[in-house]
């Protein structure tokens, strides 16, 4: 770097002033249009080529479907307590099967178990936020309010509003492959919705998200289970990420136990 005061560096030079631009008028517009169009076409072609292929159906004709849950997800009691403040401790002498790590709401009394695919990131007396531990990014929120505050439908609407603040472009995902069939929480039928959209960073980097939202109410408590999956269309375990992650959340829905009658 030249130091201040260097006469060579600071010598002014004569400007030309009479030179015209290489491109003028219409040629600027045409050149810009051609460049932009070429980039847009390339982007469209890439989007078509890298589009995740439609996943194969779970059940193929002539094959057995369903079956027991994976052995890794089932373990005999007693289960090690991870968070003494929020764990649902079984009564002394109780006998049963526990499929995962328990979590209990200290304020509303409901409880559920989650598998090793998830880890609790944060929680309070009525809600828990779990992060996916497998490959890819996903988040699961279990949140509840007294039924007097919101019905299942109203609570679903409330959560849609919250989700819209976070990802403003989310929209109902009506594709059959993402439809929630028979939505229920703890064997109580409820509301099931799926949304798709994207989340933008302050720098403008944008990632797609897929959201599954279920709410149900037993008349005393209204519960929402929300699964947010990043890159929901990406391939994962011979299926697509959103489907795979939702499958890993099933245990929470099946082991969900509503709070005691007061």
């Amino acid at each position, binding site marked *: *770097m030249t130091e201040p005061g260097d006469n060579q560096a600071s010598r002014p030079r004569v400007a030309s002033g009479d*030179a015209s631009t290489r491109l*003028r008028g219409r040629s*600027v517009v045409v050149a810009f249009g051609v460049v932009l169009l070429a980039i847009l076409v390339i982007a469209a072609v890439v*989007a078509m080529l890298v589009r995740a292929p439609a996943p194969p159906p779970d059940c193929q004709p002539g094959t057995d479907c369903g079956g027991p849950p994976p052995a890794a997800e089932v373990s005999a009691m007693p289960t090690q307590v991870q968070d003494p403040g929020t764990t649902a401790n079984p009564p002394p002498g109780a006998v049963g099967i526990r499929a995962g790590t328990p979590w209990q709401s200290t304020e509303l009394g409901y409880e559920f178990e989650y598998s090793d695919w998830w880890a609790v990131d944060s929680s309070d007396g009525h809600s828990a936020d779990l992060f996916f531990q497998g490959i890819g990014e996903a988040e699961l929120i279990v949140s509840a309010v007294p039924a007097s505050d919101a019905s299942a439908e109203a609570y679903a609407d409330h959560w849609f509003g919250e989700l819209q603040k976070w990802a403003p*472009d989310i929209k109902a995902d009506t594709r059959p492959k993402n439809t929630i069939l028979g939505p229920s929480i703890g064997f109580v039928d409820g509301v099931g919705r799926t949304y798709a959209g994207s989340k933008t*960073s302050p720098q*403008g*980097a944008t*990632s797609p998200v897929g959201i599954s939202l279920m709410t149900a109410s037993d008349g005393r408590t209204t519960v929402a289970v929300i699964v947010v999956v990043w890159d929901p269309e990406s391939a994962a375990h011979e299926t697509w990420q959103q489907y795979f992650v939702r499958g890993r959340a099933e245990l929470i829905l099946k082991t969900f136990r509503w709070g005691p009658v007061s």
Partner: protein
Amino acid sequence: MTDEPIDCPRCGASVPATAFCVRCGASLRATEASTPGRRRDSYAAAPGESLTRVALFSTLLPQLPAADLDAFRIAFAGGLVALFALVAVGAFPVALVGAAVLVPALLIIYVYSVDVYEDTPLPVLALTMVWGAVWGIGFGVAIDALSRTTPRLGGTALGGSQLSEMLVLGVLVPILGAAVMIAGPLVLMRDRRYNDVVDGATFGVASAVAFVGAQVIAGSIDLFAGGPIPVGEPLPWIARIMAIAVALPVVAAGAIGSTVGAFWLRYRAPVRDRAALGLAGRPAVACVMAAALLVAAALAAYLPGPIVNVVVQLALAAVALLWLRRVLHLGLLEEAFEIEIGDEIVCANCGQPTRRHTFCGNCGISLHALPKRRDRMDR
């Protein structure tokens, strides 16, 4: 034009009796808008515009003659309309890529058109646009990873804090990005062919817009997995496209262009002109101001609602543009007393004859703010 020279009331030099002093750009005739001898309030790169006017094209593309600005305006407006049409049909990934390249593509056409890179396009391109793009890709990939490891929806919805994410993506990343965007063009300061402040500012602008565009595309690559028309509401995308196509690149271009211009003013300008920008002309202060602008633009993304976000970011873009405009203006007003008044030429801006020096005697534009072709023959 008369052949009788007069003494400029501002710089005192003997100059042709034209509307403006060809040495210092001061008005030599009393008009409604000017008083003889006063340094003009008009922008040296576009004498028809005020220095305090928020004008995108005459600021980001200062070396274009007035007659050529309209073509760039039409091209840019047409590009924006095309992007909004893509959003309307739901082709979000394609619109996002188009938004990310809109300003960089315009700048590439500009630097080619006015020959900013003169006879050494490769090293200059490498240290401005390629430098910015390569680092932008690296930052985009890092941001994509970082934004997944910081607290997300649960942290917000459950009443938790977004503080850690805001510190990383809203403060740390913009500061590091500013340092990278400035570093590449500074290498070019050793090359004496690029002595003008307008050169330094243009290099900074090129590095910044390439960085921002590449960062957006690299950080959004997963968006393509949903195909060309993924599920999503178009309306919020309009604000998003405005931010990516206009607000973010203009904030970066203004902040980084001004800062690199301040380095040029400090180390390449004649000694007497180095204090012209005051405190903002000190490179260290300019670096802090640029980082502050980029941090403010990033933190604006955490304000509630996409419309509010983009409005605040556009306001910051206006501030950045005014700063860049002032740097360019003062750079162009650099006085050049050592140079003799040259032969008569036809000004590329107004088409009228003027003597070759620093300013057009007829329209008052800085001749350094005009295309460079054939410039090299004069050295």
